[in-house]
C-alpha cells in the first residue's frame, strides 16, 4: 500500500507524461497547445507536492494564465496546412533525433551531477508556519539581489528590443484624444433653437 503522497505523485506524473507526449503527437496544433497547458498544470501539482507552493502558483499564473493564452491566441489565428507541415518529416528526423538525444544526455548530466545531487537528495521537510513566499522574497532581496536585478534588466532589454523590431512609426489612423472628448460640452455640439408655437389655421 503506497502512501497518499506517492499515489498522487504517480497520478500526476502519468498525466504529465501523457500530456507531454500528446503535445508532440497531436495532429491539431490547438490540441497540442491545450495539452501543453495540461502538462504545465500537472507540473504545478508536482511542485505543490514538493512544498514549493509559491513556485507552483506562479507557474499557473504566469504560464497558464498569461503566456499560454497568447500562445493559444496565435495558434488559433494561424492558417495551418497540416499536409504541408508533415512534408519532409523523414528528412528532418535524423537531425531532430540527434538534437533530442543530446538534450536528454545534457539533462541527465545536470540531474546526476555532483553539484545538484538531485537523485540522492530528499525533499527538505519544512516546519509548519514557515512561509515559502516570505523565504523566497527574503533570499531574492538579500543573497540573490544582483542576479535578480540583472534578470530584470535583461527582460527590460528584451521588451525594448521587441518594440524596436516591430515598431514601424506611427500609423496614419484616425485618432480621438480622450482628454479632448471629455472636455466637449453640449453647447459645442447641439444648438437649441427657441421657436414660438405656430398656429394652424
Amino acid at each position, binding site marked *: 500500500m503506497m502512501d497518499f503522497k506517492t499515489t498522487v505523485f504517480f497520478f500526476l506524473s502519468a498525466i504529465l507524461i501523457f500530456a507531454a507526449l500528446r503535445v508532440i503527437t497531436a495532429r491539431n496544433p490547438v490540441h497540442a497547445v491545450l495539452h501543453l497547458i495540461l502538462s504545465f498544470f500537472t507540473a504545478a501539482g508536482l511542485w505543490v507536492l514538493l512544498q514549493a507552493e509559491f513556485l507552483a502558483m506562479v507557474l499557473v499564473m504566469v504560464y497558464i*494564465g498569461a503566456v499560454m*493564452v497568447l500562445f493559444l491566441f496565435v495558434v488559433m489565428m494561424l492558417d495551418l496546412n497540416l499536409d504541408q507541415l508533415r512534408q519532409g518529416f523523414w528528412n528532418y528526423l535524423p537531425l531532430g533525433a540527434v538534437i533530442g538525444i543530446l538534450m536528454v544526455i545534457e539533462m541527465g548530466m545536470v540531474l546526476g551531477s555532483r553539484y545538484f545531487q538531485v537523485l540522492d537528495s530528499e525533499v527538505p521537510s519544512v516546519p509548519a508556519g514557515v512561509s515559502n*513566499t516570505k523565504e523566497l522574497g527574503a533570499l531574492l532581496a538579500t543573497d540573490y539581489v544582483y542576479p535578480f536585478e540583472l534578470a530584470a534588466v535583461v527582460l527590460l532589454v528584451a521588451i525594448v528590443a521587441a518594440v524596436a523590431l516591430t515598431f514601424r512609426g506611427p500609423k496614419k489612423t484616425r485618432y480621438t484624444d480622450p482628454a479632448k472628448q471629455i472636455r466637449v460640452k453640449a453647447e459645442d455640439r447641439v444648438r437649441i433653437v427657441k421657436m414660438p408655437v405656430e398656429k394652424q389655421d
Partner: protein
Amino acid sequence: MDTLMQFGTGMFGTAWPAVWTLIKIVLIIAPLMLGVAYLTYFERKVIGYMQVRIGPNRVGPLGLLQPIADGVKLLLKEIVVPSGANRYLFVIAPVLSLAPALAAWAVVPFTDTLVLANIDASLLYILAIGSMGVYGVVLAGWASNSKYAFLGAMRAAAQIVSYEIAMGFALVVVLMVSGSLNLVDIVQSQQKGTFADMGLNFLSWNWLPLLPLFVVYFISGVAETNRAPFDVAEGESEIVAGFHVDYSGMAFAVFFLAEYAEMILIATLTSLLFLGGWSSPVAFLPDSIFWLLAKICLMLFFFLWFRATFPRYRYDHIMRLGWKVFIPLTVVWLFVVGVWMLTPFNIWK
C-alpha cells in the same frame, strides 16, 4: 459537532475526513448555485425598477420562482452542436469556464474559522485559479467554428489578460499593507488601527487608505467578468452574442452559471480585501458572517447598477483604460504606499 464527528467516524471509518470535506464542499457550492439563481432574479428586478418596469412577476409570488422556471427550461432544451464544430472542445469549454469559478471558493474564508482550506498562500491560489477562467471563453469561441464566436473570444481574451495585470498590482499593495497572503490574516489586519480603537471600524478597512486601488480593483473585476459596460465579448449589437452564440440549452446555462459565480466571487474578494470581510462596521456590534453577506450583496448591487447606468465601452477605449490608465495608476500607488510605509506616518504597523 463532536457527536457528528463521532457518528461520521463510526459510519465511514478512515474515509470520514474525505467524506466530511465533500460535505463541506456541498455546503459551499449549493448556496452558491442558489445565489447564482437568485442573482439573475435580483438583476432583472433591479434593472426593471431602474428602467421603470416591474420585472419578472408571473411565476410564483412576486415572480420568485422565475429562476427555477428558467433553469428547468434550459435543462429540457436540446444541445445543438454545429456541424463544423470541434465536438470535444465544444463540450469541454463550458466546463473549463465554470471549474475555476468554483475551485476558487476552496480558500475563501467566511469567518475567522469557517473556511474549507485555510492555506498560507490563499491569495496567490485565487489569482492563479482566476487566471484560468479565460480558457473556457477562448475555446468556446474557437470550437464553435463561427466568425462571431471567434471575434467574441478574441475580445474576451485580450480584455481579461489586460485587466488581470491591474488587478494583480492592486492585490500586491493589499498584501504589502497586510504582510500576508492569507485571506484570514488580510481581514484580521483590517480590524485594527486608529479608527478601530475609536470604535469606527469601517474607517480602518483597506478601502479608505487604498481608495484608488479599491476602485481600480472593482472596475477591473467588472471587466474581468465581462459584465456591462465591458461586455464587448458578448456585444449583441455587433457580434450577436459573442463566444456563446452557438451554445444552447444546458451548455449555455453553464456559461451563464460561470459568469454569475465569477461575479459573486469578485464581490466576495472585494469585500474581503477592501471592506473588512466579516468584521462589523462599528465596534458595538459583533463580527459575523452576515456582515460579509451584506457586503457581497452591496457589491453585487453595484454590478447591476453599472449595467443599468453605463452604455457599452468602445473596444479601443477598454484597452486604453486598462493599459494607459489603470496599470500606471496602480504602479504609482504601489510606490506611494511603499514610501508611506517607510515613513513615521505608517498606519499599518
